[in-house]
């Protein structure tokens, strides 16, 4: 009950200052601004207006007129938003703390200043009412950022739509390769950051794991992100993946490890407790590393080429 009323109060203290100019505002526009729906806006406003059982009841200094699909509002006391609450400050502080870990040293100043500025906009509550434990008892780690200066350089190039020359050492390459990319986006997935980009050498979308980039040099040449591109197109089942014509890697996981895989993939176990999963396959060496991490608890069923490669690699290791 209290939570419902508090949510309504929060929405009203956002809506009223926006509307309190005596002008008629389309309700749909108000709903978009409040990131809610028209019904909710109407319900909130009617909640203030419905006082039929109390002839003496009214909100001092607050006038609401709803005509057709427009609302007009005048208010003396609620024409400005309230200060930030502790919970709101904590939420933004959590985001700023995440950025502070990712950014280059020269960017940290802006983050610290932003934190201080937000602190100055906080409602001054008695100490007993303030949330404790840093960012409201919350903390977030997205994954290996690698060199923060590299991330900053790529983020800057992404914003400026400038191409970048990379030295990139893939998981199985002994030497870095030079690539020229148009960065289209950044994705944090399963504990690592990835740059999603158009690679000029491959003339295709490719994904570069950030902690394997050894050098990133922004170039003067600019690019446009095609309107048809969306980061969603490289997201598959909570991971990023890109290949021109991916094959299929079929792996059977034993009952010893299958429940972890089933939880990650969001699929039910087979009747015997094991699990067979088809993964998109772009790189044979990735497939070998992937199954070896499970030892005898993962078996490649297809393709035969990956089975042969796994066996060959194991024979090589044991003969040494």
């Amino acid at each position, binding site marked *: *009950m*209290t939570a419902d009323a*508090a949510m309504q109060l*929060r929405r*009203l203290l956002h809506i009223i200052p926006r509307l309190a100019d005596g002008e008629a505002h389309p309700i749909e526009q108000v709903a978009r601004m409040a*990131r809610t729906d028209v*019904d909710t806006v*109407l319900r909130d406003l009617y*909640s*203030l207006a*419905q*006082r039929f059982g*109390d002839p003496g009841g009214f*909100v*001092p*200094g*607050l006038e*609401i007129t*709803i*005509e057709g699909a427009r609302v007009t509002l005048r208010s003396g006391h609620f024409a*400005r*938003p*309230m*200060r*930030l*609450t502790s*919970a709101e400050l904590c*939420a933004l502080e959590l*985001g*700023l703390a995440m950025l502070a870990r990712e950014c280059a040293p020269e960017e940290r100043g*802006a983050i610290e*200043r*932003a934190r201080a500025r937000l602190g*100055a*906009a906080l409602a*001054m509550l008695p100490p007993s009412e303030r949330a404790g434990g840093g960012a*409201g008892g919350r*903390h977030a*780690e997205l*994954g290996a950022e690698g060199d923060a200066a590299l991330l900053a350089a790529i983020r800057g190039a992404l*914003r400026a739509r400038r191409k970048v020359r990379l030295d*990139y050492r893939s998981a*199985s*390459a*002994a030497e870095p390769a030079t690539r020229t990319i148009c960065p289209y*986006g950044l994705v*944090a997935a*399963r*504990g690592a950051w990835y740059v999603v980009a158009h690679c000029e050498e491959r003339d295709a979308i490719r994904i570069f794991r950030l902690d*394997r980039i050894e050098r990133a040099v922004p170039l003067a040449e600019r690019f446009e992100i095609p309107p048809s591109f969306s980061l969603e197109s490289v997201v598959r089942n909570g*991971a990023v993946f890109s290949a021109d014509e991916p094959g299929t890697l079929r792996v059977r996981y034993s009952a010893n490890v299958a429940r*972890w895989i089933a939880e990650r993939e969001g699929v039910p176990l087979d009747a015997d407790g094991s699990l067979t999963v088809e993964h998109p396959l772009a790189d044979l060496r990735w497939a070998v*590393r992937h199954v*070896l991490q499970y*030892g005898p608890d993962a078996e*490649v*069923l297809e393709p035969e080429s990956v089975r042969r490669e796994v066996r060959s690699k*194991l*024979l090589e290791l*044991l003969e040494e």
Partner: protein
Amino acid sequence: MPARKPTTTERASAARAPSPSASSIAKLQRWIDLLAALLSRRFPAPLAELVRDVPAYRASPSDDALARMFERDKEELRAFGVPIETVQLDEETSGYLLRARDFYLPILTLPGVVKAASRARDRSGYRSLEHLTFEPDELEAVAHAGARVRALGDPLLTADADSALRKLAFDLPVDSARHESEERVLADGRGVDARAFALLGGALLRRKRVCFDYHAMSTDATTRREVEPYGLVFLGAHWYLVGRDVASGERRNFRVSRMRAIEENRARPRTPDFEPPAAFDLAEHARSRQAWELGDDDAREVIVEFRASTGAARAAAGLGEPVRGAPSRRRFRVRRPDTFARWLLSLAGDAVPVEPPEMVQRWRAIARATLAVYEPGDRAREGA
């Protein structure tokens, strides 16, 4: 400011939303009335005076009922973030004060647009408010921070971040949408009920114990747990509750998506059940750890020889410590030898253990067992 009768009309033909409960509406109306009553005064006012501006208080059946209702409203508004002060007017009477400058958002500006913003606000009678100037790079950081928090998938955090950004956007051009289109955090929200965050967040704030059914993956068993919550941590793609498991006395991480039937201890709701240890540091606790570093076994040193400079090998070497006089070797502290041996195997020969002998034997045993899976005849036997 004098009170005015509203001219509310209802000629709307738009669909009407389902009405909230009568008591919820009544509470909202009392809160708004009380806020208006406090904001219209510059000096502390006793309850007897505030009653005149809050119709629901006037309708209260007794002084005791009125006092209880007012106390509850005042505490709930404080919990909402409204800084209502209590001032002793005389030996028996308390007064209540809500200073405009403590309640209203300061007037926010960007450099160079101070005058335009302040003119608009002066007309509305908010002259006492301070001005707060954000530099463009600070505002950019705030918008980016908001987008990052939204991506984590906790509905409470998202609501708080959105609410904060909307307040700032009253005066400033805050745009977090661009960050959301260019950067994506893939949070695995499968199996997480939004109410779980509400329950755990509330218990965390009030320092109350929580009980829940928890499916432990290591044992594949579900048991009822009682936990003192210390914090919520987002690691990689998942949210975890960090807390002390009451039965074992140990500090544990519980993945939120594996919890069911979460309940907060309802006994003495206004009294905290525990205090987190003074030295507890959530960020330090959440520091990324590899699977072989976890657990209660003693840590053992393992020396690994790195034989290739592939991207995977270099990243793996970065997790260990240097060995004096052996630049191709790294030292690891391992609590789970089997997990470590499998991780080394995934490097496909780019790195091999060299010390101690037990680890070398364990690694070779796992490699042999894995090879056996691929021996001719094995598949036929399994019918694969």
